[in-house]
Structure formats: structure tokens, C-alpha cells
């Protein structure tokens, strides 16, 4: 685990870059990360997915995989992959400041 500075804030991240302290997250961090990861600009649909991922993680103590996101965030699987083409399984969690999902689905 290490820390880094992004969008004017210091955040704790694990070896793969996932934030380890969800409370350190701000929307500005998500925007900065979206630039780094080639996802920017973030649309309303992106934010809907990120908000769902954060709420769902807070409620269930586990970050959601794509299938759960599709069931709860009002996007289809195809749309989710269009929003995060380089892999929604990891990228949603990276941007939402939640752990890497343990779900295989």
C-alpha cells in the first residue's frame, strides 16, 4: 500500500491502484483518474454507474461486479462496456474509490 497525490488530495492506494480508504474519495478524484485511464469525459451514465458502485459497496461491504451494476444502475451490459471499454470489472471500482470486486460476474 502507498499513497499518492491526485486532484489536490492525498489518497491511499493498493498495488493495483485501487483506493483503500473510500472516505478519501471526491468526484474530482474520479475526474482526474478518468483522464489518467483514458475514460474521460465522464457522462451522466458514467456518474450513475459510479454512484451506484459507491452506494452498493457502502450497503453490502463488497464492491459490485458488472452483473450487479447492470441490475442496479440502469445501464445494459453492452452500455456498461461502451462506457468502460477497457474493462468495467476493474475500472468502475478504480474510479469509484472502492476495492477491486471479488465477484466473477
Amino acid at each position, binding site marked *: 500500500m502507498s499513497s499518492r497525490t491526485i486532484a489536490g488530495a492525498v489518497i491511499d492506494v493498493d498495488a493495483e491502484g485501487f483506493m483503500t480508504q473510500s472516505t478519501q474519495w471526491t468526484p474530482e478524484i474520479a475526474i482526474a483518474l478518468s483522464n489518467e485511464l483514458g475514460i474521460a469525459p465522464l457522462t451522466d451514465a458514467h456518474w450513475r454507474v459510479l454512484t451506484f458502485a459507491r452506494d452498493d459497496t457502502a450497503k453490502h461491504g463488497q464492491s459490485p*461486479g*458488472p*452483473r450487479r451494476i447492470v441490475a442496479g444502475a440502469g445501464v*445494459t*451490459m*453492452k452500455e456498461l*462496456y461502451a462506457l468502460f*471499454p*477497457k*474493462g*468495467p*470489472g*476493474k*475500472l468502475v471500482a478504480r474510479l469509484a474509490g472502492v476495492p477491486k470486486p471479488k465477484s*466473477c*460476474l
Partner: protein
Amino acid sequence: MTPDRKLAIICSKGSLDMAYPGLILANAARMAGVDAMLFFTFWGLDIVNKAKVERLHISPLGNPSMPIPAMIAGLPGMEAMATRMMVKEMDRLEIPHVAEMLDILDQAGAELYACQMAMDMFKLEKSDLVPQVKEVISAMDFIDKSEGAQVIFI
């Protein structure tokens, strides 16, 4: 994350317990941003055969992981019972059925191919397969399409 990485999975078996590993691995690859293609051949065609996709079975006979004596495992109804139990357990864990897995894979951008020679052997037409199968290809086509991929044979 790793744009050049690619997984090619050969599915050669049509039992329920041999169908899931390939489907789950292909889906995991797409979740992680890795390209994935599946090649269904021999009994693996059952996984994408419209008439069989919802009727894949698990066999307790000759299955050392199922502690049922072979004489009993071979009795009529035992295979259906083992299958029912497994499907029930998967439903409890909210694991999608095979047909839904194929739809998820298609939406996730995985490419599904069926083997021409196996199709001929089983007298199947493209129209007998689920719509998610992109193309019926030869073994040599598979070799071309899987260039640079990590290959998994199931």
C-alpha cells in the same frame, strides 16, 4: 488495462461442469479488459446448440468428485437428480444459466465461434445455434484468429 492481451478458449465438452469454466473465464477476461474468444467444438457445441443449451447435464457416473458408488450412479434418474441439485445450488448463488451467460458474453464483446467439422459431424446448421455465435469457422481459421492469444483447452 492490457490492450494487447487476448484469451482464446476451446470448449470441447458439453456437460454442465465443463461449460461453466470456459464461460466464466471468458467473462472474467472481458471484465478485466482482456479480449476473449471462444471456440466450440465436438461436444462443446451443445453449449451453443439452441436445442441443448438449457438442458446441459452433469454426470455422476465415472465422476470421482461425486461420492456415489458407480452401480448407483448408473441407475436411471441419477444424472437428472445430480443436475437438478447442481442447478439449484447455482440458482441459490445467483449464477446465470448457460443461455444468459452466452448473452452476457456477447454484450461484453467476447467473440463466439463454432467448429465447422463438428457441425458437419452432428449435422447442424448455423440456424441451429444460438444467435450469439458470430461465425462457423474451420480449425485453421481458429489458428489464424487466435494469433497471439493465450489458449485454454477445456
